[in-house]
């Protein structure tokens, strides 16, 4: 089945927008006409296939019930007192504090007291719905209490198609799930001229129940010509821990979005993103981590190299919601700019509605430090060769850190295409 063109507007929108002239608030994803919806997805065995398609919704509904027990709704009397207080404030302060639109939306989400309403997709609901439609049946990975499940999903990029997977991960209390997602070029189609055109994508929902541990690695090593959409939504209950590592190396355009609800006490989400922008690549990264649970922790690390005429936008939002006492959110980005034609945009946001918290962010954007360059050039490398080393290092590190053979093969194959001889050198090095 071939589809007509699709435009997904306001994708990967950051919760608190800023000046429009910066063109950073959100992005637009264009799906060209004429692509066939044809998922080319391989799912490893063994993984628990017992999960039903609505397992995630059921888990979230159970969590809602448990959360409401711990967080009873305000009584009519309390609501009346609050209304009275707000009315008095409005009288005393010229209509009350004039909130920004995003602050009103954030309050409305909290007042809904609904975990389903608060659950978000990083690239946005519209993109997630499109990927779900393109993927067809969901892959459901479920770990029973106290058990460990390892699963692998390989999405192959096939020219002229939309190849997508929709994955739900439900980690029951005390369980452990390791999920590896590999998005790779179709080996048969590699090197086709002219550049093949196609879409790959995954939309992943993760429910980590009390004390569960979930680790997700997503390795993307596409050829040029492909657009990749990587959508993730996370929910972490008490003491749950979710680690996400994203390695983004290829393709013509990448839209990566991750949203997380740190709902539980002492829940934790760590995100480690490594990317390489080269040629005319476009990378769009959006992260939104919302702390609800007391003593919850998040740590967002993004490190990358931009070369050629690559452009990258990173929106990173840590939201410390009232009541998340003792929470800590940290965000750090390092970008190495290698060529004159690169374009880097970064907006690291902290939203804070709670005083007993710590929020930190930092960003370092620049070129190779003089002392590093001096060291390398003093050993006979030209500046250009030194800069290429940093590019190659990203690919090499991705291959070394690959969680499995499929991911490593995909990275090495991309490395070979970017720098002929890479595969041989890498094997020698290993």
């Amino acid at each position, binding site marked *: 089945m071939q589809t007509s063109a699709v435009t997904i507007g306001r994708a990967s929108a950051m919760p*608190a*927008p*800023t*000046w*429009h002239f*910066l063109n*950073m*608030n959100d992005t637009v994803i264009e799906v060209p006409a004429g692509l066939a919806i044809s998922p080319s997805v391989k799912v490893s065995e063994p993984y628990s296939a017992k999960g039903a398609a609505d397992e995630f919704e059921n888990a979230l509904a159970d969590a809602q019930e448990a959360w409401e027990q711990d967080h009873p709704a305000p009584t009519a009397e309390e609501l009346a007192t609050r209304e009275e207080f707000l009315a008095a*404030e409005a009288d*005393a*302060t*010229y*209509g*009350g*504090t*004039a*909130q*920004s*639109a*995003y*602050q*009103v939306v954030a309050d409305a989400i909290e007042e809904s007291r609904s975990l389903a309403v608060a659950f978000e997709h990083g690239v946005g609901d519209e993109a997630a719905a499109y990927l779900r439609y393109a993927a067809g049946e969901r892959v459901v990975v479920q770990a029973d209490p106290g058990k460990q499940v390892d699963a692998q999903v390989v999405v192959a990029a096939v020219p002229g198609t939309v190849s997508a997977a929709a994955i739900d991960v439900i980690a029951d209390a005390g369980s452990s799930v390791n999920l590896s997602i590999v998005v790779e070029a179709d080996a048969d189609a590699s090197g086709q001229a002219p550049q093949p055109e196609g879409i790959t994508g995954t939309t992943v929902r993760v429910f980590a129940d009390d004390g569960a541990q979930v680790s997700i690695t997503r390795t993307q090593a596409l050829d040029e010509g492909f657009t990749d959409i990587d959508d993730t939504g996370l929910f972490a209950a008490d003491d749950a821990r979710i680690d996400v590592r994203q390695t983004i190396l290829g393709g013509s355009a990448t839209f990566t979005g991750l949203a997380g609800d740190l709902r539980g006490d002492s829940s934790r989400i760590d995100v480690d993103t490594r990317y390489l922008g080269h040629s005319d690549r476009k990378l769009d990264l959006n992260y939104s981590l919302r702390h609800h649970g007391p003593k919850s922790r998040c740590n967002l690390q993004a490190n990358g190299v931009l070369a050629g005429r690559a452009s990258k936008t990173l929106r990173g939002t840590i939201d*410390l919601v*009232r009541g998340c*006492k003792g929470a800590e959110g940290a965000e750090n980005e390092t*970008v190495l*700019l*290698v*060529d*004159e034609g*690169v*374009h*880097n*945009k*970064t*907006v*690291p*946001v*902290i*939203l*804070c*509605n*709670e*005083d*007993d*918290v*710590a*929020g*930190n*962010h*930092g*960003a*370092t*954007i*620049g*070129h190779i430090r003089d002392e590093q360059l001096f060291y390398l050039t003093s050993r006979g490398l030209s500046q250009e060769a030194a800069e290429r080393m940093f590019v190659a290092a990203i690919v090499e590190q991705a291959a070394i850190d690959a969680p499995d053979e499929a991911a490593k093969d995909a990275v090495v194959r991309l490395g070979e295409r970017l720098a002929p001889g890479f595969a041989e050198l890498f094997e020698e090095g290993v």
Partner: protein
Amino acid sequence: MAEKKRTQVDDIDRSMYDFRYDDADAEKLDAGLTPDIVREISERKGEPEWMLEHRLKSLEVYNSIDMSDWGPSIDGLDMDNIVTYVKPPTEQKSDWESVPDNIKDTFDRLGIPQAERSYLAGVGAQYDSELVYHSMQESAAKMGIVYSGIEEALHGEYAELIRSKFMTLIPPTDHKFAALHGAVWSGGSFVYVPRGVRLDYPLQSYFRLNAKGAGQFEHTLIIVEDDADLHFIEGCSAPKYNVANLHAGAVELFVGKRAHLRYSTIENWSKNMYNLNTKRCRCEEEGEIEWISGSFGSHVGYLYPMSILAGRKARASFTGITFAGRGQNLDTGCKVVLAAPGTSASVETKGISKDGGIQTFRSSVVATPAANGSRCTVSCQSLMLDDRSRSDTIPAMDIRCKNVDIGHEATIGRIGDDKVFYLMSRGVSEEEAKAMIVNGFAEPISKELPLEYAVEMNNLIKLEMEGAIG
């Protein structure tokens, strides 16, 4: 365990600002915004034709663009009810004794003449829509410095210079309230510092909005020629009314080669004020702009002074503090454009929010492809004094040049128990420890302010020590 009491941080004592005089003698135009009102403002001022055209075009722009959707709500501001022009019952004076008593008393109570006597090289005072007083020390005048009302300067020898610069840094198309300013601007100062002239004492303009339900739209244009040096201080206040007042001024600063300008502002509008002010500076080669900015008043504030570093090795620094208390949403920060090789900028801001107030730091740093070898650091710290308030940080960076170094860091939190413990272990009482920490938090800003402003700011964030913060 006994419940810990939070330290109470006092609201700013605005009693010294919150007095007003009857404005029955003032000439007011009708509320609202129409081409006829704009024409009438221009006619009353006897302006050149180009300015009337500029006003009418700006009004068209104002009507054609939407209000921004990212900042604090301005739903409480109904432009149909805002009086855009209020002329006090006096002409501009250069002799303080000639100023009408109630206006004189206003500025006396704010300490303006006293400041002039003690340390200023010149003072301008605006009351509602018009300047009522302008004077400059003879020594400064002898140096060739011009400090006058911008409207009178439009008719003098600098008319062409003003025309060539007016609203070029802040075009009416920039945003809705820049367009509004272009349509109804009134009053404000013109400063010209000739090449090589360095003024040791600051000039100061003070803006007072007395009339109820009115807007103030002064335009400040400062040109500091090559190798010259100036410190300019701006202060503003208003009495509190139960209806919205609006301030939509514009400040355009031109800093020449190797010139230096320090622009200090303490904004202390009353809490019914919508402060939608725009400030912008262009620096030429090795020129330097220093912004010192304190934002304390207003119901809603949008304020982001912008530095355009257009010449090689031009420099900018921005040092700011924002204190948002009950009923306030202050969205402040700055913009930097690194547009030439070797430019550098540093931004250091502090934000305090309490009692349900909202404080947002918003910034943009843009490095153009021409910014080879430039650098910029942004540091932003926010202190939350209770869990009813809000503190957001939204810094954006847009880098289009390889050889730049851009650093950003931000922290949000409350006063750490470990810091209090550390000081207490060295014999400092708990109360003193907390006072030291809060004063230390604001110190990088207060040390940059003129003395009397620093004292005022310390009073503004005075602490009543009782129990523990948090």
